[in-house]
């Protein structure tokens, strides 16, 4: 059997995921980062997006917002602000949030916080992608 690596996804509120996996793809700020066992030690900031985990031929998607990843000795630690596994995502809520953010961005104008609306849009998009709705 192929060598595995440990993946821990931790948020300030709880440990979301902790298992032995084959392959991890994380949304790094410089582009996607793929980790196989025995990856060289690395620390990277992450952006809001979808993290993919491959384990025994099955793929799991986790929507994460913000945070960073540390890799060392075949151990991947993801510290994210929020992390939701695909089966935990509230699709309706994410869709509503996406619509709201899009409307706000489309309306434009001075009195809206563009950065905030964009961040909200990214979060909603990441959730929908992870849930397989996009």
């Amino acid at each position, binding site marked *: 059997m192929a060598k595995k690596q440990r993946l821990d996804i931790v948020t300030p509120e709880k440990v979301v995921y902790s298992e032995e996996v084959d392959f991890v793809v994380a949304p790094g700020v410089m582009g996607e980062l793929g980790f196989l066992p025995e990856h060289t030690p690395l620390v990277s*900031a992450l952006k809001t997006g979808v993290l993919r985990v491959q384990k025994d031929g099955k793929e799991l998607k986790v929507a994460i917002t913000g945070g960073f990843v540390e890799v*060392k000795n075949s151990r991947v630690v993801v*510290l994210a*602000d929020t992390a939701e596994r695909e089966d935990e995502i509230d699709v309706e809520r994410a869709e509503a949030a996406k619509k709201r953010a899009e409307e706000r961005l489309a309306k434009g104008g001075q009195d809206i916080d563009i950065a905030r609306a964009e961040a909200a849009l990214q979060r909603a998009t990441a959730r929908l992608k992870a849930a397989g709705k996009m």
Partner: protein
Amino acid sequence: MQNARDIRRRIKSVKSTQQITKAMKMVSAAKMRRAQEAVQAARPYAIKFTDVLGRVSAAAGSAVSHPLLEVREPKKTAYIIITADRGLCGGFNANVIRRAAKELAEYDEPALITVGRKGRDFFRRREANIAAEFVNLGENISFKQAKEIAQFVIDKYTAGEFDQVFLVYSEFINTLTQRPTTVKLLPIETPAEGEEKNEEGAKKPKVSYMYEPNAESVLGELLPKYVETSIFRALLEAKAGEHGARMTAMDSATNNAKEMIRKLTLSLNRARQAAITKEISEIVGGAEALG
């Protein structure tokens, strides 16, 4: 001596108070357990985070500059004060407030960020300078709430409106003990160096990391998060402490009520006995007079 009816009424009222305090105690016990679990659930993140932060700041070197590391002459000081939204928890709020008020006296017009209704009300009455208030945090503290508070102070600090920021909260030691604690939040004093020495002292092979994009910008990401997690932890501990304090306070209230009921019952019996004795002696006296 009070008459028997009045005493009976007192007993009844004390009993219903006792029921309330007993119920509150049990509710607090349950809530405290949950709050403690939240504190524990937050621990892995905090440990890992400090670990990575230490390493990254060591790698970034001491020359790195970041707005949150910038030490300025402390002209304007801000205090984040974490209290509970509700009372009936013994000295919990008073202890934090007293500690904060004492420290505030040393600064010239400090700005306050009050978290929790009790602290806000107190400092509002004192007409202190409240820069921001966060109330009604509810039972389940979420990281988002901590983030909001952190964002506020970070913005103010970066804008130069605050030169240093302290955090006063109640540290949860155990159910019976909560200790008011002050920590310096900004400028950040990197926890790096002390720990790094330990690692070298143990002669562990030092792993060299790749940083993406580079150590400085990773550090830039980490520092605001450090503020957030510190506040988050304080909020969680305060919540657990609040329930612990309330539980203890309600426990002693229940015991006091019990003691009071015991004493009242005793005097009720005495009063009743006295009434009976009086009646008998009146009858006897009346019979003698007739005979």
